């Protein structure tokens, strides 16, 4: 049995301990906002938060997250409601400031990688509210095949506090 919290709810799943969190979320819990991109942590499409920190779920076995708190894109805004950091501040019950900036700057194209991108950026800004370009380059390593990167950077800059 695997026990962990997803978006504030306790989950108990009768699954193999080595099943990656990605597939537990998508195929067992039906949370398809978290995406399968490469399966080897090379692209970041599967990024979720474990206790608020961005983690690539495709190589994280459920045995490694026993009892821990998982936030997915579906739960980002409600997780934000309980947080004190500015980038997590939900501007309405369903969108965080990061998500709103993504709309304001028209960031996504095909959108497939953007759940992971938003989760990675949300984690970065929670830890470093005013990241430099170098900070962004070193911590946001997600692949976007459509090349939304210039807009990702613009959206992050618009959220930086200083």
């Amino acid at each position, binding site marked *: 049995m695997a026990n962990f919290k997803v978006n504030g709810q306790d989950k108990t799943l009768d699954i193999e301990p080595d099943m990656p969190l990605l597939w537990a979320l998508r195929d067992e819990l039906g949370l398809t906002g978290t995406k*399968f991109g490469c399966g080897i942590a090379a692209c970041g499409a599967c990024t979720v938060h474990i206790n608020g920190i961005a983690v690539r779920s495709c190589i994280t076995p459920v045995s490694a997250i026993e009892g821990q708190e998982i936030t997915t894109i579906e739960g980002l805004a409600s997780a934000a409601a309980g947080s004190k950091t500015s980038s997590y501040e939900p501007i309405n019950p369903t969108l965080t400031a990061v998500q709103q900036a993504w709309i304001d700057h028209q960031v996504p194209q095909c959108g497939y990688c953007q759940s992971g991108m938003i989760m990675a950026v949300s984690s970065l800004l929670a830890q470093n509210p005013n990241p430099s370009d170098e900070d962004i380059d070193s911590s946001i390593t997600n692949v976007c095949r459509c090349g939304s990167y210039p807009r990702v950077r613009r959206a992050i800059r618009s959220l930086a506090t200083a």
Partner: protein
Amino acid sequence: MPITRRRFLLSSALVGGGVLIGYSATRPSRHRRANDELAKAGENFVTSFLKIDPDNTVTVYVPHSEMGQGVHTSLSMMAADELDANWELVNIEQAPAIDLFANGDLVNGFAGEMGAPSFLAPLIAVSAVKIAEIGNLQTTGGSSSVRFTGEHSMRYAGAAARDMLIQCAANRWQVPAAECSTALSYVHHNASGQSLSYGELAADAALLEPSKEPTLKTRDQYNIMGKAISRNDIPAKVDGTAPFGLDAQPEDMLYAAIRLAPVFGTKLVSVDAGDVLSRRGIKKIVELEDSVAVVADSYWRAKMALADVKTEFEKSGNENVSSDSIFAQFDKTLAESDGDTDREIGDTDAAFESASDVIEANYRVPYLAHAPMEPMNCTVHLHEDGTAEVWTSTQDALGIKSRIASILGIAAEDTQFHHSYVGGGFGRRLPFTWNVIDHAALIAKEFNVPVKTVLSREDDMQQDYYRPAVASNFKAAFDSSGLVRAWQNRFTGPIQTPGASHIPYAIDNQSIRVVDGETHIPIAAWRSVDHSQQTFFTESFIDEVAHRAGKNPYQFRMDLLHEHPRHQRVLKTAAEAAGYGRDLPEGHALGIAVQESFGSVVAEIAEVSMDENMRPVVHKVTCAIDCGFAVNPDTAAAQIESGIIFGLTAAMYGEITIEGGRVAQNNFPDYEMVRMATTPEIDVHILESDNTLGGFGEPATPPLAAAVTNAIYILTGQRVRELPIKNHNFNKPSLAKA
């Protein structure tokens, strides 16, 4: 555009498929069929693509796939503007995958431009009768949605509907239609002060036949087109709710992991599944002609089990084919074959005989994978009653539906297609790149529950239909005064995009020929198709010619482009914006390239330096595009940014190599992508002109590689004639040219 063609295109927009061979008159008009088949009580299709409800909301049905290019929004803007609709009251819907909403105008548009789009060539080749069926596609490709479907269908649909609404109001008021005006989803009769909403008129208007020649707005009359309007697909893409094909979750679904023959074109000989069937969740091993699949109650279980299934595939004789052997074969063919004419101008032989100076250079590009972020997938449910449902991300919903129906042995009408957003296409999800689609249908045939077949990233990379590897050899002749007099080019085919190898430069004698480049590697359209390689070749070699002539590469191009003012205009705009000819930071250089493709002319200038390890760093790309008109300028700019980054990934890293007859690369680490840290600043200049609308999805990709390598030449004196750039070592130049 001549009026006859307009009429032709309009009838295609409104009257049904098959107009290419002209039997449309006998069929009921599309909007009547839409009303019969789709409208609920109280709703009315006024023309196909447009529905107006009693509450005055307008719904635009967009017959294209949304894959991030913003087509749902752009096409709706075009219809709504001509309709004079209130944008706040416009809903946007994906048109269902039924022939009522085929987008054959894409074919008509290409027929006028260059024959037919490359991805349809296999169909067109069959017979004239088949051409009628091309109208029954819903294809999204060729940078065509706005300039063909939008210009030839959506605007006409909006304008025709507006005419019909005016006529209805005029009839009710007993006034001449010419005295009526429209604004924000209302018809007004100013003289009597009367107004009626479109919603009040729609039911009567739908009884009228659409005018075949509605009056379109001129650009100064646009209220919606030309404004940066937020895309309607973005909100669902920031909260995880946007459905992609891979997210389909019909009840009782099973999952298939599949291994296709690693050497293309070989058949499965034997399977040793060991104890796999006894493992948790494993339902079945399905053996197909060229593959084996494990079906389970979870994709992960299926994938893990498949890894332990041993397979043997037959030998085909291609097991020794490698990238080296392919290029050796290309070189041999180029040396021995005269090939076929692509373009012949003047007398090239004579020009070479009398030349004072000749330069030669041989270029190569490798195979490239599309690698969309959403791995290839398709879910099929064959019901016990012989009907079926399909869920997949595709660039051709109608075509995929028919394809799956034919494999299942049922009628297309008995197949329901569930649309989703497309997690990247770039050509991978066009017609004739069917592998996962066919396999999903064949596997689902074995079950009476839905089965989702998924290609892993590794399989996706190894089982693509690739941008071809191409070799291209050049010679140029100069006369005694140093003028370039002849341009000779021989390259390996096939030609997928006619004209991509043609140069706009005024060189009197040109001989461009194509030789056979066939291999066993499957190829298809890859974002910008032949332009992706041909622009690297031609814009690099013209740069060589310029340097040999002792000319500044910018001025050299401008001088030879005197018959191409659009090219001159974008080059000049990009050069000025990039600071060409002005002081740059020390160690920086600017490389130039220009190309016309898909109706747009694009110049790009790359600002590049070499880092301390003599690796190139692209700091900035300045782009100017003449697209005629940008319907949604912000979306257009996003497509330019996207095309540049896609081109930069290919130029810097992109390489699929063949070893042992199969693809050597597996996943992103060995097929690297540009990421945040390697993305340059991008400065986009969209230039409007009187020209017909050009595309945006592809035209920014072609010039990028040559712009970068032309800058590297200035910095190092080393000419990059083979991509990708990562394979080259650069030396510190003893004498850097400015």
